[in-house]
């Protein structure tokens, strides 16, 4: 699975892209976040307020109960501020 981070999530985690083979028990976006948080203080910091984070799977916005597939591209980012 490919995971992308943008804006201050990218800064806190310290990278913009990672590739993982996920543990079998990870089924949803929420499971993924909870697993990422265990990987270090940068992740814990980035996801400290999960309610303000937006997630996209394969370029579409999803809710945290969205089911994940091993081939998915998952992105995490703060609310958008373009325009």
């Amino acid at each position, binding site marked *: 699975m490919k995971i992308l981070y943008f*804006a201050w999530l990218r800064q806190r985690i310290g990278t913009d892209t990672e590739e993982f083979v996920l543990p079998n028990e990870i089924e949803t976006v929420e499971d993924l976040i909870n697993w990422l948080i265990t990987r270090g203080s940068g992740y814990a910091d980035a996801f400290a307020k999960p309610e303000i984070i937006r997630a996209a799977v394969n*370029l579409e916005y999803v809710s945290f109960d969205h089911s994940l597939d091993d081939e998915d591209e998952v992105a995490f980012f703060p609310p958008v501020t373009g325009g």
Partner: protein
Amino acid sequence: MIKVQKEDFNISEEIESLTNGDSAIGAISTFVGLVRDQDNSEVPTSVLKSMTLEHYPAMTEKKLLEIETEAKSRWNIKSSLIIHRYGQLELGEKIVFVACASSHRQDAFDACNFLMDWLKTEAPFWKLEETHSGNDWVDKRESDDKAAERWK
């Protein structure tokens, strides 16, 4: 048409190519968003030095195309254009340009207003403001959510 680019652009030329000699076009509504100084009344004005726009290229393209298609399904639009820049921009530089061409003016106005409101809440861009006292990611504005709600 969608253009996501680092470079500046010329508004007259963009409008020219938008109408492209279509004699049914009588109305063009456009919007230009510029890098402006912050609304912070506690610090002197002109604290902003520059702004860097980050985005998610593949998703940006997809969302902007979706937004444009939605506008065309709601209003009678002959042609439309969204240009959004990324990278580092100085105070006063253009960030975004939206133009909608139609036979009649209200279609053009409403479609342009809608495109800006949706773009603000749907297009995956993030602004980092560079000031003399450090860098800050711009927070989302509640008023942008409310503006987008109007069109639902």
